[in-house]
């Protein structure tokens, strides 16, 4: 094991897969000469050259489409969006071309492509540049949607995503790039579609993903001091949803709170709650609850931005609510 940042873990996953498989290549805005707008592709141009680390013009629809075509022809592109906000320009390529091709070709064309980049809220970049696309892509059949929290998962899940035969939307988090964590030495591949129980507990399940996991872990620590033993689940994969892990946890704790940065309406939390209600109804001792970002465009002003985000205090309060205890 060695301690590296999430940023380095993502770079390592790409580098190792590019060494392992010549069909893997990276393209996007500023990925080569500048080594990534968030410095994620450091050293890749130098090692793999401009044929496999490709700077593109500022045209998301264009290079995403090039990536889809390359994947159809047997390459394994990694398409980096400077942020997922800009991928709105390319969403037709992602949803209509990438996600549906295996289905519409009757299985003749696979599409092994990874779309990756920072997602979610950042600091004071305002409504158009600070939002969570998890629910958007998790809605689409034909896509896999991954959102890692720590460095080990960033590497293991990206490696798995690159090797996957189908399009994977890989949602990184700007505020996590600098976070460090222990990563196993050598090849490290995680399984897509599996959630992870980060902290076992008895009284309430707190489920989140990406940066939300850190909120939830803080909340769990505070709850522990107040006598509530929370189980923390890192969902890791928004699609497919690891129903077995969620339902197994609820069978033990009888209560669940989902926590996400995104908007509440039709969010991932809504899907989790619906799943639990439908499939673990008799295990529930309280209505499942969601903690989410506020149902507004992200404010620019710092104090308003803070109020629009889920907080660990909110998670603690809602956990008490479902435990019928006083916080």
């Amino acid at each position, binding site marked *: 094991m060695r301690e590296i940042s999430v940023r380095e873990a993502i770079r390592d996953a790409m580098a190792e897969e590019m060494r392992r498989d010549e069909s893997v290549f990276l393209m996007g805005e500023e990925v080569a000469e500048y080594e990534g707008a968030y410095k994620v592709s450091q050293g890749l141009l130098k090692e793999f050259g401009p044929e496999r680390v490709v700077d593109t013009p500022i045209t998301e629809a264009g290079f995403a489409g090039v990536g889809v075509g390359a994947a159809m022809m047997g390459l394994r592109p990694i398409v980096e969006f400077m942020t997922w906000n800009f991928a709105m320009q390319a969403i037709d390529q992602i949803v209509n071309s990438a996600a549906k091709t295996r289905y519409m070709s009757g299985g003749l064309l696979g599409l092994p492509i990874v779309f990756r980049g920072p997602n979610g809220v950042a600091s004071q970049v305002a409504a158009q540049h600070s939002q969570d696309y998890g629910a958007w892509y998790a809605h689409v059949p034909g896509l896999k949607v991954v959102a890692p929290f720590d460095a080990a998962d960033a590497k293991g899940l990206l490696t798995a995503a690159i090797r996957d035969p189908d399009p994977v939307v890989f949602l990184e988090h700007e505020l996590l790039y600098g976070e460090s964590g222990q990563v196993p030495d050598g090849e490290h591949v995680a399984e897509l579609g599996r959630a992870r129980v980060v902290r076992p507990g008895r009284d309430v399940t707190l489920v989140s993903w990406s940066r939300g996991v850190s909120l939830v872990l803080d909340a769990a620590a505070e709850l522990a001091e107040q006598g509530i033993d929370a189980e923390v689940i890192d969902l890791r994969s928004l699609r497919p949803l690891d129903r077995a892990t969620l339902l197994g946890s609820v069978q033990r704790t*009888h209560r669940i709170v989902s926590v996400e940065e995104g908007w509440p309406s039709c969010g991932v939390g809504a899907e989790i709650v619906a799943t639990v209600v439908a499939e673990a109804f008799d295990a529930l001792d309280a209505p499942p609850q969601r903690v989410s970002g506020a149902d507004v465009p992200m404010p620019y002003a710092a104090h308003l931005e803070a109020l629009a985000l889920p907080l660990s205090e909110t998670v603690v309060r809602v956990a008490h609510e479902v435990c*019928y205890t006083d916080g």
Partner: protein
Amino acid sequence: MPTLIRMPALSPTMTEGTLARWLKNEGDGVEPGDVIAEIETDKATMEVEAVDEGTLGKILVADGTEGVAVNSVIAVLVGEGEDPQSVEAATAELGDTAVPEPRSVPQPSAAKPAPPEDEPPAEAPAQAPAPPPAAVSEPAAPAQPSPPGSRVSASPLARRMAAQAGLELASIRGSGPHGRIVKADIDRALQMGGAPTTDEAEAAPERIELTNVRKVIATRLLEAKQTIPHFYLETDAEAGALLDLRRRINADLEREQRVTVNDLVVKATAMALRRVPEVNSAWGGDHIVRHRAVHVAVAVAVDDGLFTPVVRNTDRKGIREIAREIRSLVQKTRAGKLMPEEYQGGTFSVSNLGMYGIGAFAAVINPPQGGILAVGAAAERPVVRDGVVTAAPVMTLTLSGDHRVIDGAVGARWLAELRKLIEHPALMLA
């Protein structure tokens, strides 16, 4: 209209059973109370009694059939004058709808669908599942849904737990929002050994912490009953002379100086102990302790317990001295000011419940003593004198003795002595 006889639920958790044996044949007449069949579950074999009278028209489930679902129709009963052909019509109508899901049976596992939200799942008795014989047959009417408004707010988990435990949700008070019954409420109900109704919950037992006095009483009396082989002798003593003596002593005394019946009994007890010293003894483990002094302890009730202050050398003290001492000890006891030397060292005890109207009782020996006298009320009772029944005050005296120390004959001799002293108090001077 023919009556459908359905598979009964013999317990709240029964979902199916074996129809072991029919005791009536098709065409047999049936009276209410007749045993018509035997049903087996994994726990028991139960008899099925008829509720209605009629003729067993058709048996639909044969002897020995296993896995018969609760509430499914097992036979059809036709009434007097009914066309046996109507049986065919009734059974033809059965279809799927006439064999409803067992609505009175809680679902045994999470895998099965939950009971409908608008219906309390456990209609069966909350506890002690008893076979409901009346459920054997019922008119062939479709199952009625519970009336609206009867919904109990409970979490799904609580609902399932209650069904599994056979608790009636309606009898459990919910602690969740809007009175929702949640897991904690079911846990509490189960801990209390069942479902308390709201009234019962309010009347739930109160926990009273033990005072030191109560702890000592518990320890000492448990020790006494566990280690001392008690035996009991009872005799009646005419108390006329004793009461007369008391009247005469008190005639010239101020109220607070007056002598009680108990004072006189204590004096007589002390005299009897002096005369039959075997009873003034205690068990010493590997020997018997024969006390030379007579120290009579007197049981005094206080609000929260019992003390036995001691009148030392009781046999040597006069009545008024004993009375004065007991009065003082009682006051100190009730004031909580009794000193250890005032309640230690007794050689024998007297407990008198006569003032509470008790006629006779047996007291528990106060270790390390060897005996205790229980004194009942001196009340007018019929006595026979010279073959004639007449009324006279009588009190019942009961000796509890430690049989390791006192044998029955010795106890009897002592009690006879005491009786003589009470019936002829002048002998106390002798």
